[in-house]
């Protein structure tokens, strides 16, 4: 009997946890497809009486009227996040390789320095960046935002890739090199393919950080030219009212790519973080 109660309460706890984690997301998803008045219903109405894609058609101006230029924001987000991810991964991977394969003076200090650079809060960094970017004329451009995200993503990429390269035995590259490969060829043909899944995980992580970033982008993007989705979301926020259905709709647009990427990344992400940290 005691055992039964224990088991039931255990699963009850798990269920409670699941509800707590999933409920807000589900509510956003459902609310994106219902008419605005229904969101304000009391008591809450979990299953919409009438499903509608009104918010989405408005957002993407399918019938001519644009409420919020979400398509432009989406494009900006996609371009800024992917370009900054590619660059950050390329240079971060070089850095990670250097930390994993070489011993040099001040190695630990440089590593720590890079991590501390990442710890600077976005809002504190935004004050000088705003002034400097305005001075050199790259404020409100995708280029400026990309530059910022590259620098923000590099330290963490180094941490992750360093961990993945360490897991590959040094001997493999050495064998390739005695067979006549240059160091770069050994890296390209042997080490990179082996670290591939891990580097993919690092890339997705970098992508998500850029995709979700708000504090800096809200300052250095000003118009529809460079605004990303998180900033565009604020268009639904007026001084006194909030268009909840619209916000939920744009939130769905923002979450879905993130969720898909999470599914792909989850396994490698954990191993990268822990190996890089523990077996250092």
């Amino acid at each position, binding site marked *: 009997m005691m055992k039964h109660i224990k088991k039931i309460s*255990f699963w009850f706890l*798990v269920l409670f946890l*699941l509800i707590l*984690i*999933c409920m*807000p*997301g589900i*509510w*956003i998803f459902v609310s994106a497809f219902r008419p605005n008045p229904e969101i304000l219903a*009391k008591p809450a109405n979990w299953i919409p009486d009438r499903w509608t894609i009104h918010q989405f058609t408005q957002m993407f101006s399918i019938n001519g009227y644009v409420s919020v230029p979400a398509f432009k924001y989406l494009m900006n987000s996609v371009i800024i996040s992917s370009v900054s991810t590619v660059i950050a991964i390329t*240079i*971060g991977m*070089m*850095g990670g*390789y*250097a930390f994993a394969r*070489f011993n*040099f003076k001040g190695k630990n200090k*440089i590593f720590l320095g*890079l*991590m*501390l*650079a990442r*710890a*600077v*809060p*976005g*809002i*504190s*960094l935004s*004050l*000088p960046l705003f*002034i*400097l970017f305005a001075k050199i004329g790259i404020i409100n451009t995708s280029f400026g935002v990309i530059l*910022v995200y*590259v*620098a923000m993503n*590099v330290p963490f990429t180094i941490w992750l890739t360093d961990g993945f390269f360490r897991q590959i035995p040094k001997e493999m590259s050495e064998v390739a090199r005695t067979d006549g490969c*240059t*160091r*770069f060829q050994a890296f390209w043909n042997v080490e990179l393919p082996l670290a591939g899944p891990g580097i993919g995980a690092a890339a997705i992580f970098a992508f998500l950080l850029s*995709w*979700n970033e*708000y504090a800096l982008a809200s*300052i250095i993007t000003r118009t529809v030219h460079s605004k990303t989705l*998180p900033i565009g*979301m604020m268009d639904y926020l007026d001084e006194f009212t909030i268009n*909840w259905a619209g*916000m939920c709709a744009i*939130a769905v647009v923002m*979450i879905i790519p*993130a*969720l898909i*990427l*999470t599914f792909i990344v989850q396994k490698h992400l954990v191993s990268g*973080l*822990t190996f890089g*940290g*523990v077996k*250092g």
Partner: protein
Amino acid sequence: MNRKFFSSPAILLLPSILAIGFVIIIPLIFSFYTSFTSYKLTRPDSLFNFVGFRNYERLIDNAKFWAAFGRTILFLAVVLNLELLFGLGIALLINKITWGQRTLRTIMMFPMMFSPILVGFQWKYIFNDNIGLLNNFLYLFGYESAIPWLIDKYLAMGSIMVAEIWANTSIFAILLLAGLLGIPRDPIEAARVDGCNSWQVFKNITLPFLMPFIFIALTIRSLDVGRAYDIVHIMTGGGPAMRTELLWTMIARIGYKDANMGFANAMSYVSIILSIAFTYYFFTKLVAARRELGQQ
């Protein structure tokens, strides 16, 4: 590509250091300089109006600043501890499940992938006094007076903490679960044979083994604590009557709304030092824990 290029760590690290130098180091030097001027966005010539330590002196005298500073420390202390505690609890719970563990682990990662701005917005909705889910839920049970979660001076801070904990507990849970799955079974079984109870096994074997994982999680979290700005900014904007004002929202308000960059930059430096101190502390702990684990 030539051989030299790939054999020199200095060259390999150069692009990373250049990017960070240009986007982080140079702006920080610049803002350090402006923190000694009376720079106002509306008056560009004031950039060269050197005022010495006056901005910092004003900070020290400013009661609102110290209130925000104290609130930030309190916020971080409560939030990080609870996240660690809940994360550990969830990890232990999921570690016991044999069926569907992978699916659960993936679901658990969902909040990690929500933009902080989105987390803020969704909890702003849940805690809304009029149409919010929580009050709606209580209404079902006959609790008809709407509780002003984000307007009450005490509840507002708690509500923000809930949102922050919801968003970030999963980082702890995921990493601690990875740690739990890696624990060798032999010492635990040996301890049980020797008559240790569950609590003793946990305290003497599981927890020491988990220590490096706890510090990895804390280090990663400390890199991102500043992102709490997004959540607070959306949920209350520092209100009611500055009851939820943290350092970061105060910086934004003084820097952009009041256009007083010099003063805001002085304040930024305090917040930067705070974040760096957090990260540095956890990082050295991580290195120490890692070394200890390596010796065993």
